[in-house]
């Protein structure tokens, strides 16, 4: 764990905001930006609610900087729940950082990485330089969301920050490696997306038939390793044949 990512003194800087999502959900927002400290508080609150459930709370969804909490208003009212959550938050410790490290093979460019060249041109760099920049960073899995097993990645170099498309594309394949705003991603299933795509990984990050259907977890760290299309296809074939299953690097 980097010293600079240690949470500072808790409680004084910011009390969270409560946002309303209709009659059965609310959102506890610990910050506006992608921030590892806010993300740790999110994960800590989610864990707290797992350890000591509040009657009427149905589910939580940890995201970058906020925790979605769904509830049954016949059991607990939103206003009351905000009070209960506020009390919990004042006593929260920082989540212990038990991250796994992954080296994820990526085939850059090509049909799936359709935006590589245009994006490089937009950023006034060569496609090779973009690949170099993208694969040199260490990313943190801040959350799993949008689709089953879809990993949202913090740590995207600022030079690669790119807004999403105004209208999503209809079909992006599983494994596509993308950029949306200040975030990175690995698509886990095929589907529509407004993100820009620079490559694909042969790894499967979601497999509903598996005992452990989702590969990554919030808090994991990963790096992208450029591989040739040929190597990518070999890895995909080995995974498909059940000869290979992605593993994190040695336990930290």
């Amino acid at each position, binding site marked *: 764990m980097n010293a600079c990512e240690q949470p500072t003194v808790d409680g004084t800087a910011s009390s969270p905001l409560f*946002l*309303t*999502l*209709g*009659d*059965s*959900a609310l*959102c506890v*927002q610990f910050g*506006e*930006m*992608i921030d590892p400290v806010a993300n740790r508080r999110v994960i800590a609150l*989610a864990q707290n609610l797992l350890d000591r459930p509040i009657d009427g709370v*149905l*589910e*939580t*969804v*940890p*995201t*970058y*900087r*906020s*925790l*979605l909490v*769904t509830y049954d*208003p*016949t059991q607990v*009212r*939103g*206003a009351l729940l905000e009070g209960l959550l506020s009390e919990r938050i004042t006593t929260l410790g920082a989540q212990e950082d038990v991250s796994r490290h992954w080296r994820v093979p990526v085939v850059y460019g090509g049909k799936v990485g359709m935006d590589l060249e245009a994006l490089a041109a937009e950023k006034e760099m060569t496609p090779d330089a973009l690949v170099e920049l993208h694969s040199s960073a260490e990313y943190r899995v801040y*959350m*799993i*969301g*949008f*689709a*089953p*097993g*879809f990993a*949202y990645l913090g740590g995207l170099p600022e030079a690669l920050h790119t*807004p*999403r498309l*105004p*209208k*999503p594309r209809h079909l992006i394949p599983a494994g596509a490696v993308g950029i*949306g*705003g*200040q*975030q990175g991603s690995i698509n*886990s*299933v095929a*589907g*529509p997306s*407004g993100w820009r795509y620079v490559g694909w990984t042969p790894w499967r990050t*979601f497999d*509903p038939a598996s005992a452990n*259907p*989702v590969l990554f977890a*919030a808090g994991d760290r990963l790096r992208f390793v450029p591989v040739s299309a040929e190597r990518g296809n070999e890895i995909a074939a080995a995974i498909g044949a059940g000869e290979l299953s992605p593993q994190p690097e040695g336990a930290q």
Partner: protein
Amino acid sequence: MTLEILSAGPVLTVQDHGRRGLKHLGVPAAGAMDRPSMDLANALCSNPPTAAALEFAAVGGQFRAGRDLCFAVTGGDCEIRIDDRVVPVGQSHKVEAGEIIKIGALGNAIWGYIAISGGIEVPEVLGSRATHLRFGLGGLEGRALRAGDVLPLGAEKEKPICLRPRTPATRLTPIAADRPIRLVLGPQDDYFAPDVIALLENAPFRVTSQRDRMGTVLDGPALAAVRGHDIVSDGIVPGAIQVAASGQPMILMADAQTTGGYPKIATVITADLPRLAQFPTGSEVHFEIISRDDAENIQIKDKERQEEILNALVPATGALLTSEFLLSCNLVGDVAHPEAVMGRDHEAPSKSRK
């Protein structure tokens, strides 16, 4: 112990109450677009509310009963036949093994529900039988059903009798497309200037044909976000109204993803989301902004009201007058077979030929 699909409407899927507890892994709930209507269909078949049923868009299909069973169709008006006999929507009917159920077009709704006594017992995937089409989860191979599919049925818990709501109805809540859809502002209403919030409340919107189980796109004035249309992705729920850079609002529905990166100006209340799902394409939509407290009160009362209807089902007098049915209602002894008096079908063939 099966139901065979002889023909299928365009979007016929297995649904139930959806997946719970996996949103943190990005697994959306799925489940019925109009859950109260599915609950009614299940209750009419004496199924538990957790049973899986069939959901269809616009047109049902034809089905062959693999065993004696009881079925009900809800959601909207619809022509239903058992072989050539016309039977009414909004109540359950007995069918003998080998008979064919024909479910036609919905007259005034988008989503219809077909419950079968014993429920559809396809294997659970991640804790639910609900089909999520985009992610290929649940149902039969995670896809819409088609001719030739054979669905396993569960065992009937009790011998079902034919039922209908005390006040005959095809659904628990009227669609009432002329009445406003109620919203609670947030979570990102502060991304929009007050005049845009006023537009949301005062301008008419229109249901476009860009709609599926995941979302419904509305036409209307563009809702520009002063703080921009990209947010750091956060959690979302069905009913959330997200606004991408086009300014067109999209209302997220049953198959909605768990998180998203567009600002969400408001959330449709739980009681009104099934109504909106049933609005015909091209309908005008008016929104009314209410407080969270009011929305919760509405939800609490609505749930009570629905349970009252479901707990007060009565025997359906229009159902087939088989001796078994009459015996189950304690109306007759074993004096005479009613078929001998009425014929097997009290809805005469001349009626169904209209």
